[in-house]
């Protein structure tokens, strides 16, 4: 990113809107390794407008910013709460990297704070139903309508994902029998292609939601969206234990049980498939374990020499426990 991104954003918006734009209240919202979100106020004449710029370094770009904007607006048109996209820019002369600008929405995104807000307001159940409904509306979109530069799953998304993760496990976790056991469990139960491939977000979990006391306000982080995916992959992912933030008994995001989320999902037209859901939940857990092993490997080979990446290697046991709890053999009669 350039040394003075505030100046670059002001220049861009001035050109985009045709009037002099001044920028104030400039602050970094998150310092993620991949993307940076910057909140600011853009004032045109006497009218202040609160906005967020998402700056995407090309090295970590999963899809072009225009494609991400297109998907978000498509979801929004189908009733999914998403911050409106104001502009996209691929000209790197403004802030050094491509970015998109969207409206700012107040609320909590930090998971533990989300849990506190919902507990204090007593709106956890209501929020979880809205969350399920938002996901169902996304899954009702014809994936062929999404921009073609949004990555597409293959004909059998489950088999494809399993093959990718199996390769990583073979390379980095071959000596860990829990992973081999879980892979055998998944191979035996491969669900086949979804009856209705969908537009899937792939990361609609607590942490990527803007939540207020009144409930769900927006779904964030659309960079991982996939066309023609299995909608049960989307439903299963936010139910993993690591997205419960120590509230383990509440399967969805640490604030709602499965029935509540699924009720919201089905009320908005989604079709819940419990077997397929269970498969994708084990798959997602295994995928996360493989990701932790990859982080540790990136530390060890010097690609990303960072103590946080090193520590990921010692979190693999947590994933092994989560896997064992999900693939427990049926009790003997």
């Amino acid at each position: 990113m350039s040394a003075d991104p505030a100046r670059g954003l002001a220049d861009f918006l001035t050109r985009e809107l045709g009037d002099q734009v001044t920028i104030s209240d400039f602050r970094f919202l998150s310092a993620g390794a991949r993307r940076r979100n910057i909140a600011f106020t853009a004032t045109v004449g006497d009218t202040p407008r609160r906005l967020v710029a998402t700056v995407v370094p090309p090295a970590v770009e999963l899809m072009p910013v225009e494609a991400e904007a297109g998907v978000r607006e498509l979801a929004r048109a189908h009733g999914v709460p998403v911050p409106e996209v104001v502009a996209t820019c691929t000209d790197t002369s403004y802030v050094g990297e491509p970015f998109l600008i969207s409206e700012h929405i107040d609320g909590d995104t930090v998971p533990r704070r989300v849990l506190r807000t919902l507990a204090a307001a007593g709106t956890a159940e209501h929020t979880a139903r809205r969350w399920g409904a938002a996901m169902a509306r996304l899954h009702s979109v014809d994936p062929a309508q999404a921009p073609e530069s949004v990555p597409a799953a293959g004909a059998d998304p489950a088999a494809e994902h399993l093959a990718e993760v199996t390769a990583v496990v073979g390379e980095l976790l071959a000596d860990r029998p829990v992973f081999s056991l879980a892979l055998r469990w998944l191979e035996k139960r491969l669900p086949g292609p979804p009856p209705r491939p969908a537009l899937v977000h792939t990361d609609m979990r607590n942490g990527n939601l803007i939540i207020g006391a009144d409930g769900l306000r927006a779904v964030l982080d659309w960079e991982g969206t996939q066309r023609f995916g299995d909608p049960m992959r989307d439903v299963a992912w936010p139910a993993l234990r690591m997205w419960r933030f120590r509230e383990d008994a509440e399967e969805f995001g640490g604030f709602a049980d499965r029935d509540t989320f699924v009720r919201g999902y089905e009320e908005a037209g989604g079709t819940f498939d419990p077997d397929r859901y269970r498969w994708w939940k084990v798959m997602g857990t295994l995928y996360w374990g493989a990701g932790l092993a990859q982080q540790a490997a990136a530390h060890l080979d010097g690609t990303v020499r960072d103590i946080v990446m090193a520590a990921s290697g010692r979190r693999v046991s947590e994933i092994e426990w989560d896997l064992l709890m999900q693939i427990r053999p049926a009790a003997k009669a």
Partner: protein
Amino acid sequence: MQNRPTAAELLESLAELLEDTLLPALPADLQHRARVGANLARILGREVELGPAAAAREKELLEAVPAGDEEALWQALAEVVRADLAIAKPGYDSWEGE
């Protein structure tokens, strides 16, 4: 002869240095790393004390699993992972749900 402080005692001192002494003086964007470092020092402290017995027990448990008996394998692995978690994340195995 036992050196004092022991390895476990030194690792705890290292954790205290990172967390109690250095962390408050660090800029916000480095504090998380210091916390992670302190946590790793504590993991190593537990590994020094519990690791050798856990490794021996793991070998014993897995060798006792009859070939092809996935249920016995599951039981053995659950015990192995519990021992690993006692080092890496004590208490994580108290939740036994999905």
